[in-house]
């Protein structure tokens, strides 16, 4: 019998504590689920937090319409296996209703449009707390964010006016129309997530493992050829052995060259890499030095 908590045990307990605290104190929480590894981890921790009872809140997928089909299949299987309630907030619907206008040009992406679909869904369902799988090791603005991150009635984050957050005493108080973003795995690193997926034998979408795919190079990143992406003149596809380190909108999530087809190989690769996962794979963070901070202020995840 171990008498001290291992570091992953400590992170697991911290996350479960946060999830239970939210379920106890908020009226209408929901868990943001993209089908990516971090949201899979959040869902798994939520299932464990309330076992053997079902989780007392729905999951919500903000669907850009530009998905990898493997990820949508995966999402639907998860819903069937766990019995959780799924809500889909559709960017396509927001476009069809004329609430947002799609970017054009070769770097067109629906990444930013997600914010509108997300904020609309929060309003429609009157959610007062949204769990997200953001981690502080991902990005410099996220490194500064609290576990309970307050959003005003416009969904805005105020990085300079964050509430003090002490011990494990979380303050979720807010007025009607305001809400909290909750980040239970703030203190996990990419490697922690992978080790947990391995130790607990969690299922993840196949695109995280190396596979052959038609890709083309842009800004030093491999982008997948999909029906949604506009290719510039001179950009040519080739078939390569790649895998994805993050999963987001298919038009701005890059793949990395990789031979890693098993979880052990992935962990070895992640442990040895010298590039952060967002640096390697996220075109959306490259537009400006403070791109993430600026998007978060508008209400992004």
């Amino acid at each position, binding site marked *: 019998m171990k008498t001290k908590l291992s570091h992953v045990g400590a992170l697991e307990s911290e996350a*479960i504590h946060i999830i239970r605290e939210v379920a106890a104190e908020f009226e209408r929480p929901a868990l943001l689920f993209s089908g990516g590894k971090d949201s899979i981890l959040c869902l798994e*921790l939520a299932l464990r937090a309330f*076992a*053997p*009872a079902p989780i007392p809140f729905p999951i919500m997928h903000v669907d850009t319409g530009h998905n990898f089909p493997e990820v949508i299949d995966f999402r639907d299987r998860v819903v069937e296996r766990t019995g959780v309630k799924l809500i889909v907030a559709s960017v396509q619907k927001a476009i069809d209703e004329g609430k947002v206008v799609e970017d054009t040009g070769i770097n067109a992406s629906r990444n930013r449009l997600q914010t509108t679909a997300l904020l609309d869904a929060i309003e429609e369902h009157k959610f007062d707390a949204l769990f997200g799988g953001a981690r502080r090791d991902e990005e410099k603005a996220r*490194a500064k964010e609290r576990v309970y991150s307050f959003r005003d009635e416009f969904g805005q984050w105020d990085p*300079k006016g964050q509430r003090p957050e002490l011990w494990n005493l979380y303050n979720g108080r807010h007025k009607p129309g305001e809400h909290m973003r909750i980040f239970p795995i703030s203190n996990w690193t990419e490697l922690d997530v992978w080790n947990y997926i391995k130790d607990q034998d969690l299922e993840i979408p196949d695109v995280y493992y190396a596979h052959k795919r038609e890709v083309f190079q842009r800004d030093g990143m491999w982008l997948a050829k999909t029906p949604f992406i506009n290719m510039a003149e001179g950009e040519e596809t080739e078939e390569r052995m790649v895998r994805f380190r993050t999963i987001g909108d298919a038009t701005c999530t890059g793949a990395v060259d990789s031979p890693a087809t098993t979880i052990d190989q992935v962990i070895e690769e992640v442990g040895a890499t010298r590039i952060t996962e967002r640096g390697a794979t996220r075109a959306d963070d490259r537009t400006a*030095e403070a791109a993430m901070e600026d998007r978060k202020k508008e209400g992004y995840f």
Partner: protein
Amino acid sequence: MDLLRLATAGSVDDGKSTLIGRLLYDSKSIFEDQMEAIETTSKNKGEESVNLALLTDGLRAEREQGITIDVAHRYFATPKRKFIIGDTPGHTQYTRNMVTGASTADLAIVLIDARNGIVEQSRRHAFIASLLRIPHIVVAINKMDLVDFDEEVFENIRQEFTEFATKLDVPDLTFIPMSALLGDNVVDRSANMNWYQGATLLHHLEELHIASDRNMVDVRLPVQYVIRPQTDAHHDYRGYAGTVAGGIMKVGDEVAALPSGLSTRIKSIEVAGKPVDEANPGTAVVVLLEDEIDISRGDMICRVNNQPEVTQDVEAMICWMADGSQLTEGSKLAIKHTTNWARTIVKDMRYRLNINTLHRDEAATSLKLNEIGRVRLRITKPIFADKYRRNRTTGSFILVDEHTNVTVGAGMIIDTE
């Protein structure tokens, strides 16, 4: 492998960012794209060398002003241990952010510039670390290269600091002479200071014994949530979920629930859905009991013969954190203690502490932003509390403004009567 949370405090001038940068860089926790990004930014700003502060100063305003405003969290691991750094600002006007970053720390690093010796800021950082009862303090006497690696300089600072620390309550104090810039005694031993026989900083961080820092004696489980599946398979299941706040909980233990005072035995304990025989402080558990007794969120499970105080009156040290308001006698606020919310009123302002001189001003009538003082509080309902020095979880609370909903105070219980 276990987890050590450490807090650093200081300003850019102390070499704090260089120190963190050195720890991250030498443990291969800075990635190439991060390094390239800060190199580009440094160059664009016309700085001569790479500014490592940019690694932790992630907000636009911080980069523009060249100061640390809020806590940044950084992560690194060695084969022996995983570390979370809460990097906090050192200036007086950001004391609340330092308190935020330090509240859960196992260890604090207080940086001293060897050229300047102990200054007001070093005293303040040490005091806040002791107020929050961070069990281990490392005094990093930095920039030894600028004082010719002189042992006497180190010795004088060590003696002066040790003397000052007798006024504080610091269980473990370690002094390390170093040069973060050159890397002396950070990860590798210094070739310039053979007179120093102690460990390097990283070695100290790796080998430090922290398992017994938590209270392993007084069993405390603040109930967070009652799990009742109400399904056919688990018809009679009634589990009390919470995070163990003290002591080791074991299956078969006789326990009591507060406020009812009724007792029973622990039938089983589950962690993340799996049964275990015992659970330590910090573990999120579900406890099932032999007898059905009325327990809900906010209640406390403890041992029959070892119970916290049940009280509506506490004496506490408060760090006030509000920009626009002051804490005075008669102030009414919301209070959160463990899993309980209640309301409280300030009955008496005992004194305000000068956090630089430790002088107690008993004539003070209010606390302003970043001020610390002792008050007496009356709470609308009984809480189940221990002294903070005995238990950092059941001895702490936050104060919240009922109109703005902002967290405006951090409280540490000195006495419960």
